[in-house]
């Protein structure tokens, strides 16, 4: 379960020296997120939909406790990320479209390393690694360097890496960005599997097709503000007559 409670994030904008001297600098701060609240339930997929630069990644990074919120907080399975980020992180898995793997390590070495970073018992590391390698069909390339693998193979290693510490909450930040249809499909199936396994899943995207494939709940984010937050069924009945894309655009246009 993820409870996002009124988080804001303010970034300082870089101001040039010239602007400082002549005091022509515009606002020096930038609201990447403005009091965003929503809840993701276990066994459901929460989709965060928004155009580029809307604040999706910032929101997910705050949930993953990589960034500190300027205000508000997030509870991950009841753990406050601002108070105990390490404990919160031990419940979290984080996956992005850029696989985030080390090219010069083999999949097996990668999995072992992340298990160790999460302080998983060494016997558990071994058994879990073997189980993941089997389930994700990594076996045939488990001892080849990651840099030599295909994108689809890398993405499978990346999924295994995310699951090495058996997280209860999984965050997917635009996981299908730049991936071909086949590889995207592997990920979508995995998100479904995580849902069936009762995990809390949040994923961000700007691709409409994926929304209807996966969503149980939907949040639309625009200019740092959450301008829609309801179940996907309600969304469909509310905007039933429109295509998904039209509905999305009309939400963005109505946004303040």
């Amino acid at each position: 379960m993820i409870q996002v409670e009124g988080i804001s994030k303010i970034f300082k904008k870089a101001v040039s020296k010239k602007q400082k001297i002549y005091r022509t600098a515009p606002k020096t701060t930038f609201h990447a997120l403005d009091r965003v609240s929503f809840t993701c339930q276990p066994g459901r997929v929460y989709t965060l939909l928004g155009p580029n630069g809307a604040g999706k990644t910032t929101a997910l990074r705050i949930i993953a406790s990589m960034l500190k919120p300027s205000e508000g907080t997030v509870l991950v399975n009841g753990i406050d990320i601002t108070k105990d980020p390490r404990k919160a992180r031990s419940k979290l898995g984080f996956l992005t479209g850029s696989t985030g793997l080390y090219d010069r390590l083999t999949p097996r070495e990668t999995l072992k390393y992340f298990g160790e970073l999460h302080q998983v018992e060494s016997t558990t590391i071994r058994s879990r690694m073997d189980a993941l390698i089997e389930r994700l069909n990594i076996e045939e390339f488990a001892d080849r360097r990651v840099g030599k693998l295909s994108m689809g193979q890398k993405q499978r290693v990346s999924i295994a890496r995310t699951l090495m510490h058996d997280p209860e909450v999984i965050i997917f930040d635009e996981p299908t960005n730049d991936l071909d249809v086949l590889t995207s499909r592997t990920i979508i199936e995995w998100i479904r599997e995580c849902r069936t396994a009762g995990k809390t899943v949040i994923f961000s995207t700007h691709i409409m097709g994926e929304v209807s494939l996966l969503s149980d709940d939907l949040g639309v984010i625009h200019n740092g503000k959450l301008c829609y937050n309801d179940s996907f069924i309600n969304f469909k009945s509310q905007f039933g007559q429109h295509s998904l894309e039209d509905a999305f655009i009309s939400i963005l246009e109505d946004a303040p």
Partner: protein
Amino acid sequence: MKIIWAVFKKEGLDTIRDRRSIIAMIVIPMVIFPVLFGGIGFFAIKETKKAQEKMVNIGLVQPVPDNSLVTALKGKEGFKVTELEAGIDPFDAVENTNIDAVILFDVAFNENISIKSAGELTIHYRSTGNGGIMRGRINSLVNDYRQEVRESRVQELGYTLDFINPVTVEFKDTATEQEQVGEAIGGLIPYIFIMLCFTGAMYPAIDLGAGEKERGTLETLLTSSAPLVKIIMGKLLLIVCSGLFAASLSVTSMAIAMVSMGSMLGKISSSIGPMLNPLNIVLFFSLLLPLTIFFASFLMTLSFFAKSFKEAQSIVSPMVAVIVFPLLFGMMPWMKLTYVTAMVPILNISLASKAIFSGNVPWGPVLVVYISLISIASIGFVACTKLAGRESILFRS
């Protein structure tokens, strides 16, 4: 501790598999000394010898007077004398034929000598290339002749040469050969070790920070429940080890070069050899350790600050100049280790190692060097763990 070790192991594996790091860490330190010494020994010594033994073509413009200088020129080994017709253009002869130098005797040369006046010689030559050495060779023959004429004139007057050389001096050097060589190149050796230590640490540092950002692995690393400080410590440990590893390899390579090329280097190797005794090396590395920790922290911070591998390289490369400057300063023979210079980081290690290698260790200032280096190492380390953990640095874009 487990996490630091896990990070260290993984980064070590990653670094060993990286070609760029291997070149900076292993290849360069291994080849630099053999190449350097080989370069000095082989080319410098050989080239000079060659120039000294090379056949010199001398053109004597007719009419050639009959005197002992001409006889000496004709008889001297390594000289080939050709007589040239009168009225030849000496410039053209030197520039466009195989004649290296043209000697023109004044018509009244022998006459002037016999009336106790000065005979005039004009010598055309080309100063560039090995011209300087050739000029020296011709000049020494002229000097012999000068001395000979001088002696006969003094004798005619009933004196010996002492008449015009009233004072003779002999300087006796109390510095041993080791001390002389130690001073000349003693500063160079720590300079090379420290530079190699820095460059050996540089590539892993860039790869472990900026490289991590560039490949998008930093995010996954940050979402692990391992505390960032421990991850940074593991990384620093590896960078320190790479730096020290590069430095120790260069010591080894120097020893090997010394043994295998010892005979060719002669004086240099017999003087450096005793400088590199185990105690001196242990002392030097104990000074190098805190400096390397400082280098590592400094490089790590810059590397995390950079957005990409390329940016990190362009930030770090000018730093080499920052380090070279105090090191070069330390190589100056007049720079000595005092309580004041002992406080200046980098300069102090250069001076301290110069003192250590020459065998006279001023323990007071050396203690100050330790304090100075350990403090900058601690400051660097704390600053690195504080700065590298900042959002504005980790997610700088």
